[in-house]
């Protein structure tokens, strides 16, 4: 589903954020990406969603070779990916409902279906009662969960999350991870960048460790 083949990323300015990175995540797999601050975790996720283009090597996502993907087709790629951002990226002038509805509006869904799907997604993250609230009135953890609801509302085959538990207390973190697990059980390919080692090492999934843009270690998935 996600295949990095000697991918490198050199940012303008010359900084080499990724260096000959190769790994593969199969369809329906769930994996963690870890590493110290600045190791390149966010950069990996950016390459997958074509927020940045790899400067060398190949990245293949959902069967598409991203280097060959034309500008016009990028929206198509992104609609097949749900992203949870490190800093939420909610729109503060819209209600929680409207924030979560965005991916559906973009693909032109009908009013009734939008309502049903958004409420289902909010229900899953336990925020159905905050539907009409504005993000500014939510605590940091609640905002994070709105972001998760938005990422899954259109049922993308791939789910990427950049430190989704950074702003959550330990209990909530576990709950959120549980949520991702369940999405994975329904066939979604999940890749999560996180440095909450305590939490992720306890889970049975594969863990990719980055250091200065290189894969330095990998813990295979534990069999349950």
């Amino acid at each position, binding site marked *: 589903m996600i295949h990095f083949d000697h991918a490198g990323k050199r940012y303008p300015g010359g900084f080499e954020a990724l260096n000959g990175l190769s790994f593969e995540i199969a369809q329906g797999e769930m994996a963690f990406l870890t590493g110290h601050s600045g190791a390149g975790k966010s950069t990996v996720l950016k390459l997958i969603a074509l927020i940045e283009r790899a400067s060398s090597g190949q990245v293949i996502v959902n069967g598409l070779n991203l280097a060959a993907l034309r500008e016009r087709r990028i929206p198509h790629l992104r609609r097949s990916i749900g992203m949870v951002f490190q800093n939420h990226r909610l729109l503060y002038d819209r209600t929680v409902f409207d924030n979560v509805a965005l991916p559906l509006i973009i693909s032109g869904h*009908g009013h009734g279906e939008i309502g049903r799907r958004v409420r289902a997604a909010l229900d899953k993250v336990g925020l159905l009662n905050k539907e009409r609230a504005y993000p500014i009135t939510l605590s940091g953890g609640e905002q994070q969960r709105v972001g998760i609801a938005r990422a899954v509302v259109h049922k993308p085959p791939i789910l990427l999350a950049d430190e989704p538990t950074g702003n959550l207390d330990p209990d909530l973190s576990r709950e959120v991870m549980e949520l991702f697990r369940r999405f994975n059980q329904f066939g979604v390919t999940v890749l999560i960048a996180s440095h909450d080692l305590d939490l992720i090492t306890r889970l049975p999934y594969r863990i990719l460790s980055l250091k200065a843009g290189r894969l330095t270690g990998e813990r295979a998935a534990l069999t349950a």
Partner: protein
Amino acid sequence: MKRHRTPAPPEAPRRGAERRAGVNRFSAWLRNHLRVFFNTLGQLYRAPLHALLTVAVIGIALALPAALYVLLQNTQRLADHWEGTAQISLFLKPSVSDDEAEKLAARVRGLAGIKQARVLSRAQALEEFRALSGLDQALAALGENPLPALLIVTPASEEPADAEAVLETLAALPEVETAELDLGWLKRLRALLDLMRRAVWLLGALLCSAVLLIMGNTLRLAIQNRHEEIELMRLIGATDTFLRRPFLYFGLMYGLLGALFALILLGLTLGLLAAPAKTLAALYNSSFEINGLGLNASLGLLALGALLGLAGAWLAVSRQLKQIQPG
């Protein structure tokens, strides 16, 4: 969706459903347009002061060339009223009586290349002279009427060359003392109207570009203002078309409302100017009244406003949106 009503388990991606939703492309398209249309209306409604400001600025910019156009039309009408077209004045010999003049007029009407001919008797000539020159008392001082009778002839063609030919024919008539083609007066009027037309075009061009600029600028800032939103939208897969649409509606709507504002402004201004214009006309013993823009030109102004709004939006949006990319 019934099978998903059980609360907890997350829904797996059903690609079939995705595709099904994508089948009816047209209804999605229409839905998007309607949504954007009502969103734009809603935005106007929620920020009425802001909307009014922008609309007022565009309205003023559109009202100005429209006002000058109205002025031009009215002057033209005034000019037509005074002079009609090229005229030939035949000054008849003092010996020609008013009766003989009428007969001559009938004969002249029969000639080729003549549209109209009318007699201006000596008394009428004096009257008109008085009205035009404004020197009533000076003429009164003359005592006896020094003016000859005239025949005012309108040539069928307005081409100076044709008119000259007619002039020559008429000048050869025995009853005629002098024949004069009123090109002087005509030239002046034409020069004046030319000047005005040039001014209207100049101003019109200037102010239409001003509307484009205002629209572009307003939208440029509006887009920058929604920078984050656009970035996010791109991240979750919005296409350029989708992102552009609300701004185009915005431009269209503002242009249209601006034109409407211009029409209202023009109406008010003409109302304010009607009284002094009437006073002025009364001084010239004229019943002249200012005419408004008229239905067609009004509709034209609305169309122009909408077009300029849309064009300004397009220019700003295409350039701006490209620059906003998630990073």
